[in-house]
């Protein structure tokens, strides 16, 4: 959409900028001084549990809700006081919101007719975008004659046809089944790359957000919890909440100890972990919480004097000179399998450490070692562990 005039004149101003946006809204979905920026051409996702304010944010950007305080900028222009129809946006709804009394063609042409575009130009545009979503053959159909996936494609074409500065998505795929959802995710991402529009994508599905986004932000109780690239949020969570939100995590309460330049963590039962990262104010000997990624834990058969596995280089073998102690780059712990859940591609182990704490591990399905009741050896690399201060 290089012909989008509004976009080229906007220069390098962020596509969307929210400044201290506040919206009181009963008890759920309120916004408390939200500030965020979305760059031109970026695929940006807003993520959070239900009631966190993500849909409120989208509706404030679209102009369907007026913020109590704060400003909204689109392409550097203050649009806070503009009605939705003067913001040049596209919005793709969860329930498609197609016009049921119009054909697919008229649905896609709607925004262009509202702009009083010459009929010849409308014809070209509608044809182009219907083809782009692969629905040229359906132009004469009514929305109710289409499947859910086709309806969402029409909604997409309808929003794209007006060539908006920003395309807003409000959980657009949550009404589709898993297989179709994945297919549509790929298609939306491809369209966004091809056409270069700025996408603002609201979802509660962290997998979807990780997969689609250039950057994403997690909202919690109307505040920005963390924003960054998918890698940053997954590998360097700023809070236990973020750590738990992406892929789940083990959260252990215990005591933090300084270890040279890094930190170690000791559970009440006495297990010691090496923390790859530390977040927030920590005191030597003070309270802390440790997040341990289940996917980075390895579960091996309990064998004396044997190296856990090839490729575990930096980790000391169990029963070595390091004993039950921890090195900077990881620890080896003894545990008992309490439960073993088969998830298809993965095995989930519910483990009880020798020190009494419980730990969940996820390993590839072919890397399983042990059945319920078996003694195993667990290796926890420091990279799996993030230590949070008590106030984070």
């Amino acid at each position, binding site marked *: 959409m290089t012909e989008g005039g509004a976009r080229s004149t906007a220069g390098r101003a962020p596509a969307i900028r929210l400044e201290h946006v506040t919206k009181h809204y009963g008890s759920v979905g309120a916004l408390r001084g939200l500030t965020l920026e979305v760059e031109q051409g970026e695929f940006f996702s807003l993520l959070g549990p239900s009631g966190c304010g993500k849909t409120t944010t989208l509706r404030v950007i679209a102009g369907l809700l007026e913020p109590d305080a704060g400003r909204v900028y689109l392409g550097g222009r203050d649009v806070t006081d503009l*009605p939705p129809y003067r913001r*040049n946006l596209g919005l793709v709804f969860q329930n498609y*919101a197609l016009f049921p009394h119009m054909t697919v063609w008229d649905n896609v042409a709607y925004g262009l007719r*509202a702009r009083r575009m010459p009929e010849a130009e409308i014809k070209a545009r509608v044809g182009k975008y219907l083809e782009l979503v692969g629905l040229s053959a359906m132009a004469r159909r009514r929305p109710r004659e289409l499947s859910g996936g086709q309806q969402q494609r029409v909604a997409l074409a309808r929003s794209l046809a007006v060539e908006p500065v920003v395309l807003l998505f409000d959980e657009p795929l949550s009404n589709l089944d898993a297989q179709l959802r994945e297919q549509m995710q790929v298609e939306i991402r491809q369209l966004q790359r091809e056409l270069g529009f700025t996408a603002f994508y609201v979802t509660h599905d962290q997998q979807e957000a990780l997969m689609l986004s250039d950057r994403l932000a997690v909202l919690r109780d109307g505040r920005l919890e963390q924003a960054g690239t998918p890698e940053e949020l997954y590998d360097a969570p700023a809070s236990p909440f973020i750590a738990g939100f992406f892929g789940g995590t083990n959260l252990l309460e215990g005591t933090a100890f300084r270890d040279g330049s890094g930190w170690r963590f000791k559970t009440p039962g006495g297990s010691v972990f090496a923390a790859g990262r530390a977040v927030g104010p920590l005191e030597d000997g003070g309270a802390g919480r440790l997040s341990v990624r289940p996917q980075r834990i390895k579960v091996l058969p309990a064998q004396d004097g044997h190296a856990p596995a090839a490729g575990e280089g930096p980790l000391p073998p169990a029963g070595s000179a390091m004993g039950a102690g921890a090195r900077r780059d990881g620890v080896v712990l003894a545990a008992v399998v309490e439960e073993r859940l088969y998830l298809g591609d993965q095995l989930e182990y519910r483990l009880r450490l020798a020190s009494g704490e419980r730990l969940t591990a996820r390993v590839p399905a072919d890397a399983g070692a042990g059945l319920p009741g078996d003694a195993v050896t667990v290796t926890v690399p420091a990279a799996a562990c993030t230590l949070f201060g008590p106030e984070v």
Partner: protein
Amino acid sequence: MGALAGDKSMAAPARASNRGEARWRRRQRRVYAAAGLASLAFFIAFFAWPVGAVLINSFRPSPAGGFGLGGYARFLTDPFYLQATQRTLAIAALSTAVTVVVGYGIALFVATRVRGRSVWLMMAVAPMLVSLVLRLYGWMILLSERGPVNRLLAALGIIEQPLPLLFSRLAVVVGIVHYCLPFMVLTVYSALRRIEPAVQEAAWTLGANGWYAFRTIVLPLSMPGVIAGTSITFALSASTFVVPLMIGGPRERMLSNYVHLAVERLGDWGFAAVIAVLMLAMVVLVLGLANGLARRWEAAQ
């Protein structure tokens, strides 16, 4: 067992024979059939029978007796009754038109309230809780020669002499609109409420301002309610009896008043039945026509 049979019949509805049905399903159907038959008996006793009796009566032009179309011939050749028919249609059409416009406005207002929607709706429908006769007495007071309306107009210096508001065409139309408005408001309101809010929001975000979105989205999507409301209103206004009787006076009599007069003054039950049957035919014809037009309009959309 039951669930299994249910699954089977869903998988192959074409083959769902009585033989293959589970016993509980057959029993269930018999319960429904019994309930249906009871309603049907009620319908025959209290609707089909009296209407049938009127229809048969209409072929017995009294007082001579006998059987034939004489009553219809008398009605259709008498300019007096043809004029009354014309007047009835004119009043019904005008009242319906006013009711549609006013009713749509009220329904739109109520449907778009964020707070107190049910209170507003209650207020729009509340008149139905009071007897029509009582409400028409109210209009008689309001529209009378020395009533509030005339006095207000005089006080504002708009008129010198009181206007003959009561017993006029205006009074009848006002009365009918008042009578039919709640029905129109309810049907249009429910049609408006069925429109998904997101559909209108989609129109706005696509660049449609309020008026354009209303014209292209809200109005067409509420048409089923408008058509239903119009049909009810027309049927009610064409057959109204109390309104012209109380505030119409002798010059604004409608057909139902002549049914009443034929029985009351002339004791001519046969002719009363003729008028009643023709009124029914007229309403059915107009509604059928309107429905056909609406369907064609919808198809052309």
